[in-house]
């Protein structure tokens, strides 16, 4: 049986936290186009998201496909686990 290491859950939660800030700021900016400080904060977390996504993917494979993530060899995008299985 394939077991996931603790780092999977830790890194995933780091990504979920940063991505959640980005979701919240996106909805906020949809109704507050001119909040410069919020836009600075948004761009800061975009950078942070890229960093964590890269780190996660280097250990656990691509998070997105259709070309939004690089692929290693062999193709592992459709490997388990899927999000509802973990």
């Amino acid at each position, binding site marked *: 049986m394939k077991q996931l290491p603790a780092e999977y859950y830790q890194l995933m939660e780091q990504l979920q936290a940063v991505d959640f800030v980005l979701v919240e700021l*996106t909805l906020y900016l*949809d*109704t507050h186009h001119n909040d410069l400080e919020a836009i600075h904060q948004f761009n800061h977390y975009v950078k942070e998201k890229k960093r964590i996504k890269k780190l996660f993917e280097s250990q656990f494979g691509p998070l997105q496909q259709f070309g939004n993530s690089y692929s290693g060899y062999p193709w592992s995008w459709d490997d388990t686990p899927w999000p*509802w299985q973990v």
Partner: protein
Amino acid sequence: MWIYEKKLQYPVRVSTCNPTLAKYLIEQYGGADGELAAALRYLNQRYTIPDKVIGLLTDIGTEEFAHLEMIATMVYKLTKDATPEQLKAAGLGEHYANHDGALFYQNAAGSPWTATYIQAKGDPIADLYEDIAAEEKARATYQWLIDLSDDPDLNDSLRFLREREIIHAQRFREAVEILKEEWDTKKVF
């Protein structure tokens, strides 16, 4: 287009194998105020809403699909490996007869999802007021689900989803305010 991300919006854990809770939760999967209805409502209304709020409807509609996946995950985990006897004892015998352990877009009483749950009136205020009401109804549903549940891990995720309804309602209210402002208005004197 949409890009799938292999990640839940919020970590979902459940404490026990509990098909009874899954039966209740299906309300938010395929019920009138559930996540499927929410996603399809907003993503359909956006084609005929003023440009200023299309982005908001697109983004909230997209987030609803992430919530749909969270609900599916809860149902999946609460019923995974449950025996037909356990499902029968939870009142899911009828479900098992038709679907085995598969998920189905239906409400807690077993009525299949229907497009009559959602409206697109073409009038921006009417549509946004429906959206605000939908968020408040979904918030209330999460309250009653938390009241019914004795699973602390599940309630943690349900509280997250309930709080999202509050934020979405807030943004839809702001959208109404934006549409009340004068912009691009053809003035007739």
